């Protein structure tokens, strides 16, 4: 039921993600931030199994930082996206020992169950958005979405999206998608976080909350 979607505008990219942390029928919390700031000008919006999501996005973020420390220059969004895809691809098939041993001893790993939308801004390439799914599909896209919500957000974006939208127009479109998800998806997530990346960097833009965590007990 996790909803993640995003689009590219005029010199910026926007991603939105729901903020529910769910286990079976229980909602752990309603303000789980699933959009990680990868570096000064990159965002990763991830959906999928919570353990894998945190583990994998932090792994990518640490490697992106390591590259920058080692080499004094940041990775481009394209390079970071391809690196991420490569790690997902390796996790699918790489065997670490002699193949004819039994299944357990082969060291076969399971795929990371994480879907990712990577948004970034580079001076030469401008704003870009990359769709990376859990079996290492990589596409550079203008708009993308994951989860059940994608049926609604992708259709809404297909209807209203134009290239070179302004921030205000893009936010309007994001809100339209959130409205559609809230009204049409059974067990729709109530809250969303919206983050933006442009030449000035990656930052949180807004929250859309219809339910807030109760902090004091009511009698």
């Amino acid at each position, binding site marked *: 039921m996790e909803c993640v979607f995003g689009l590219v505008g005029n010199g910026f990219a926007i991603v939105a993600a729901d903020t529910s942390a769910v286990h079976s029928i229980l909602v752990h919390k309603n303000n789980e931030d699933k959009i990680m700031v990868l570096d000064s000008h990159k965002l990763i919006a991830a959906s999928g199994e919570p353990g894998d999501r945190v583990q994998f996005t932090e*792994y990518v973020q*640490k*490697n992106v930082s390591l590259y920058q420390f080692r*080499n004094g220059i940041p990775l*481009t969004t394209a*390079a970071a996206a*391809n*690196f991420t895809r490569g790690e997902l691809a390796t996790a699918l098939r*790489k065997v670490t020992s002699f193949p004819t041993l039994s299944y357990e001893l082969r060291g076969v790993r399971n795929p990371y169950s994480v879907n990712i939308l990577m948004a970034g801004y580079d001076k*030469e390439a401008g704003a870009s958005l990359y769709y990376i799914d859990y079996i290492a599909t990589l596409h550079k896209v203008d708009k993308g979405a994951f989860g059940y919500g994608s049926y609604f957000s992708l259709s809404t974006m297909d209807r209203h999206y134009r290239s070179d939208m302004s921030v205000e127009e893009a936010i309007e479109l994001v809100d339209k998608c959130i409205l559609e998800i809230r009204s049409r998806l059974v067990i729709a997530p109530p809250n969303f976080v919206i983050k933006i990346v442009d030449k000035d960097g990656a930052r949180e833009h807004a929250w859309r909350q219809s339910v807030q965590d109760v902090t004091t007990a009511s009698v």
Partner: protein
Amino acid sequence: FPLSCPTIKVHISRRLTPSPFGRPSKNQRRGDQRSKAVPSSQKMSRRYDSRTTIFSPEGRLYQVEYAMEAIGNAGSAIGILSKDGVVLIGEKKVTSKLLQTSTSSEKMYKIDDHVACAVAGIMSDANILINTARVQAQRYTFMYQEPMPVEQLVQSLCDTKQGYTQFGGLRPFGVSFLFAGWDKNHGFQLYMSDPSGNYGGWKAAAVGANNQAAQSILKQDYKDDATREEAVELALKVLSKTMDSTSLTSEKLELAEVFLTPSGSVKYHVHSPDSLTKLLVKHGVTQPAAESS
């Protein structure tokens, strides 16, 4: 590299190769002097020669120094950075009319589409390192779908060379490199690396025989805003002054340039013998070394 290990490995086999030069006569004499000389530090240094991975009492790594000694006997190579390209020139030691020049290259090698190198030293060692560099460049491109920045390639190769000075008990590589390349971060670049694994970025550099003489001439005559043609001219002139041979012909040289085509892609161009001969005539360096200006 990612924090977990990458998959491509280059297998290095242990080989006990005698020095291809036999016993260099210079070292032989020096060795004899060492055993006769009185200072005990010099006598004791013999004990620290054979293991690459230990320091001498004076804090030196003799095997690394001997490797550089070996390179000092090899054909020289010069690299010069200009604002629109990098020029590499090398002196060939193996000259023969029978050499198939179209398929064999002694000094210049292409590492990736945007990086090339000139070598000085033991050719068989150089081949191993060139292959390593090529694998590292492709591994980077496989991971990031972008060309590897030149400095990172040099650094990665030098890390390999450094390993042979610290562990494994294997001798260092007897090769010095001049790397010439272009990337979008720093444009045209020239790097020099030696058997110790040290490297530096240079505007002009020389390796191999008479490299100190070449380096001092370069220091005097190098101009920051030179064009590629002027860099070629300077390279030819410096090499003609420092080469031992009496006359300069195209069969004793290899000349390569790294530059950008009008469409923006990097080109590595090795001059043909005819083109080289024309250049030698044009810049007036075909006369014997004693008479050149």
